[in-house]
């Protein structure tokens, strides 16, 4: 295992009964890197994210964070070690104020804050994601993109070693998309280590350093984005085989 890798996935496999959702996938993510995880629908990307965050336990293979094995550990322990995530279908805490949604991450996440400390951090992060001054508002007043911003702020409040974004840009309109992409770019410039699952190819092209392509549960390509996207195997996975 080389130094400087935050995440090392080694032969990760997940089966549900007879269905193999993820088959022997291996990749690494270096510190400060933004890795794109792409592939057609049902290729196992979200399952891969769930394996890393501990929502699911791998059937085989190991996943390491900073060199320590996290696969098989419960989700809350992995979160404390430093993996924070957003969800494919946005999940905010409806009974809590906007600020307390973020405080949740600050109190229980990787860096544990409490009291004024946690609230100050929450305000700072709300400002960073573009929700300044909205802290006391109920979550029900937020629009869809604002809920996504809130989820991101909550994940950042954990001060994660690794941030997992599961289709965080999905469902945004073109102008919101531009804002969202700028936000992710800022996070990368801050030096955050990020893995993002995304269908928005523009975002993958302009944001990611490298990408991993999955199809039917297996990794079929990995490398610099432009090179990977022009590989015949990848095009085939997305568009199917040309009729003879």
């Amino acid at each position: 295992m080389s130094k400087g890798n935050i995440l090392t996935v080694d032969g990760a496999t997940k089966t549900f009964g007879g269905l193999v959702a993820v088959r022997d996938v291996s990749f690494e993510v270096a510190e400060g890197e933004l890795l794109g995880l792409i592939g057609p629908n049902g290729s196992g990307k979200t399952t891969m994210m769930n394996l890393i965050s501990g929502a699911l336990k791998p059937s085989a293979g190991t996943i390491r964070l900073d060199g320590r094995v996290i696969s098989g550990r419960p989700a809350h322990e992995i979160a404390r070690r430093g993996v924070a995530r957003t969800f494919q279908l946005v999940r905010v805490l409806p009974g809590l104020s906007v600020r307390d949604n973020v405080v949740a991450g600050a109190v229980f996440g990787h860096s544990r804050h409490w009291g004024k400390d946690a609230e100050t951090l929450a305000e700072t992060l709300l400002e960073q994601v573009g929700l300044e001054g909205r802290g006391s508002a109920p979550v029900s007043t937020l629009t869809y993109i604002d809920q996504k911003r809130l989820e991101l702020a909550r994940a950042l409040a954990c001060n994660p070693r690794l941030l997992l974004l599961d289709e965080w840009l999905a469902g945004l309109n073109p102008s919101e998309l531009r804002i969202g992409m700028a936000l992710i770019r800022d996070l990368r410039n801050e030096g955050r280590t990020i893995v993002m699952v995304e269908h928005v190819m523009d975002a993958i092209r302009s944001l990611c350093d490298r990408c991993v392509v999955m199809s039917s549960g297996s990794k079929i390509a990995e490398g610099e984005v432009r090179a990977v996207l022009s590989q015949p195997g990848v095009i085939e996975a997305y568009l199917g085989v040309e009729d003879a």
Partner: protein
Amino acid sequence: MIRPTQSEWKLAGLAILGLGTAALLPVVDEGYYLSIALNMALYAVLCTAWTLFSGPTHYISLATAAFFGIGTYAVALGIDALPFPVLVGLGALGAALLAGLVGAATLRLSGVYFVIFTLGLAELVRQLVTWAQTSFTTSVGLYVFTDFTEKHIFWMLLALAGAVYLIGWAVNRSRLGFAMRIIGNDETVARHVGINTARAKVALFMLSGAFIGATGAVLAPRFAYVEPTSAFNPMISFQVVIMALLGGTGRLWAPLLGVIPFTILFDWVTARFPNHTSLVIGFAFMAIVYLVPRGVSGLLADIRRLSGRLRIAFAEGAGRR
């Protein structure tokens, strides 16, 4: 987040005033009113303790009778050997341990499975105690002779009520309380922000169980003769759920809004229809579920919102004129 806010000071003042006033009741009357006030204090403690756990988690526990009975039996078994306060402590401890065991085994269960398990558990404990008593002793019951009269028990219950409110308030503003609010909102999110959801739930279930156990212990002298059917009476479990739901579970003081009217109703029903108590209580329960699904506290919130809207409407109407 650490220091009490002004409205919390006000509430604390009100609570002390309320408990203090209630404590003076035996001076005025030691008969009917004390007896009904004792029942109110009893269910206020039980329902608030129940709500500590079931409010944020939405898990309906029917194990109240089991925890209560353990407390009662701690006193009944030890009254000749140990001082009363020690026995109350032991009752609380015993109930907390049982809650911990049950919690570790069952909090993975959700919804109706948890309800049924806790009901079965209370019944199992009752049968075990009955079996132990008939097998190893000569009688099914135990005598509890103390110098306590109703007013002493009433005062002890008021003290327990004070304790349950104070600790409930402290928990609500602790990490544990915050964790429970997040778990109640979305357990998946809770896990992924780093909350050990199982441990938090078990801890709160144990705390809730401890208070119920202590209440059972305090009430033992009132029974005088303790037997499994009275100490582990499943009606206690059901009444606690009904009253807590009638009051509402969103706030610490909300169950009280259910306890007071329901105790009066229950007293009236048992006096008027002594042979049909269960039937009338059953109808009352159905009426509560249909008519005030969010409890009296929810109803109050609705009324406040409505009156606020009306006031705005009136103000606008007046402005136009």
